[in-house]
């Protein structure tokens, strides 16, 4: 994790880095849930997951995108692909 700005929220950074390392190849984008939406959190997540497109707490998740859930919530209709630091990566159940 050396050489990366993490000071904004080190736990959230560890979650993002863990998510980035576990993303399936060719993932078109990542929607993040479980982090209170704010400009700073959006900039932080977008920067760390670049070049993969990111949406923070979106109303709708674009087709094909992965859900990265920070925390213990598990939205219905999604299945866990892999656990990550303090969260999970999820894909549509069907």
């Amino acid at each position, binding site marked *: 994790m*050396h*050489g990366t*700005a993490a*000071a904004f929220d080190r736990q959230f950074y560890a979650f993002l880095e863990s998510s980035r390392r576990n993303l399936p190849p060719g993932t078109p984008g990542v929607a993040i849930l479980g982090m209170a939406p704010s400009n700073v959190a959006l*900039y932080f997540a977008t920067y760390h997951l670049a070049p993969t497109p990111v949406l923070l707490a979106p109303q709708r998740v674009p087709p094909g995108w992965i859900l990265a859930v920070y925390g213990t919530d598990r939205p219905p209709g999604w299945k866990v692909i892999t656990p990550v630091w303090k969260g999970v990566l999820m894909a549509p159940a069907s």
Partner: protein
Amino acid sequence: MNGLWAPLAGVATILLAAGAIGYLLAVDFAPSSCGRAERAGWGFALGLTLLAASVPVAFLAHMSPRWMAVLLLALALAFSLWRLRRTRGGLPSISNPKSKVQNPKLILLLLFLIAFGVAVYALRALTEPMWSNDYLAIWGFKGKVIFSAGAVPRRLFTDPSLAFSRQEYPLGLPFLYASLAFLLGRWDDHAMALLFPFLQAATLLALAGWLRRRGASRPVALGSAALLAQFEPLYSAFHTGLAEIPLSLVILLFGESLVDVLDRTDPRAALRLALGSVLAVSTKNEGLMLVAAGALICLLSGRKARSAFPRVLAAAVVPAAVLVAIGRLWKGALPLAAFEFGYLGPPLVFELLPRVREAVHTALFEVVLPAWPGLLPLAVLIAAGRGVPAGNRLLALALFCAAVYMLLPSLAVLGPEWMIRTSFARTTSALAPLTAAGIALRLGGGVSEGVSS
């Protein structure tokens, strides 16, 4: 700490190599009377230009950006050596009739203060990886996308969810970041922060060296560099990673070369002005404002300086306009998202005056007046100087830009107060090197070199 030193040494090596090659290349840009310091300032700017340009050139040529950077630097080195061999006798000798040191203790003190300022800023810049909001949202983000994708994805200009990244901004700094990362082999936003103390050092060299060439005494030139080196509002941890520090160097180089053109100091001044103009519009949108201000100052100057207007037009305005046109063709028509230009016409024009008042009021009472302990000595120094035309023009350029930075927030979508609070101090701090050059020249310089052959 093992993880930091290797990439830090890598970035230092890249920057030193680019600066050294740029130094050799600067022989063709700098006048023959130019000293080592000024040449080093221009050389570093040239070296960084080659690095940043290597990325889009590599993408266009479908080559590896790393090897393109190596190729461009090698070609620049070969060209410089060939030119030096043709002119017989290596680098032009540095001759300065005023180089006799009158007060060595004072000079040593000033050199110590300069080194102290650079060391303190290096500590600020390198204590942690670059973290500012605008670094994460704009400059670092775009550089990282370009490096990680190995391309410039169209979504950088078209994706509405990336509107926060200021899609209309130029890509000079992101290309530079990407180039450093390609050469380093990884994205390391801690080691890459070393770029910024290097930029500070280049600015100080360009300032002191130019002042010496324009007749300032050694204590005045070094004194102005020593004061600038301590200027924390510009050289701060927060600004590390943003465009203000690179832009401050570019503004200084542009201003110096502009007054060189107006004073007809040497035939290469127009070439330097063209480079300054290209760097200005490649670094930030207000680069275009700087170029326009330069042209305006030329027109408002006395008859002799005004007669240089065609040269200013050709060297500054045309390259800037061409570069902006290329950017528009490539990226499409991207509006300045932070501004609502509808306030300049009906029906919103009636709201403009209260917005101007709000912007000026906020700037004066929340930024300018609280800074009076620093601004008062500045005013005294300006008042103490002589009316040296070149110094006056540099100060006029700085004043014009500061006025625009104060008034433009009147058109801000999120309100004048918000924009003044978030950007006025930051953007005006980039005018510090230019202001320092103007003040120092009025205090102890102003000897024009006249037209050289």
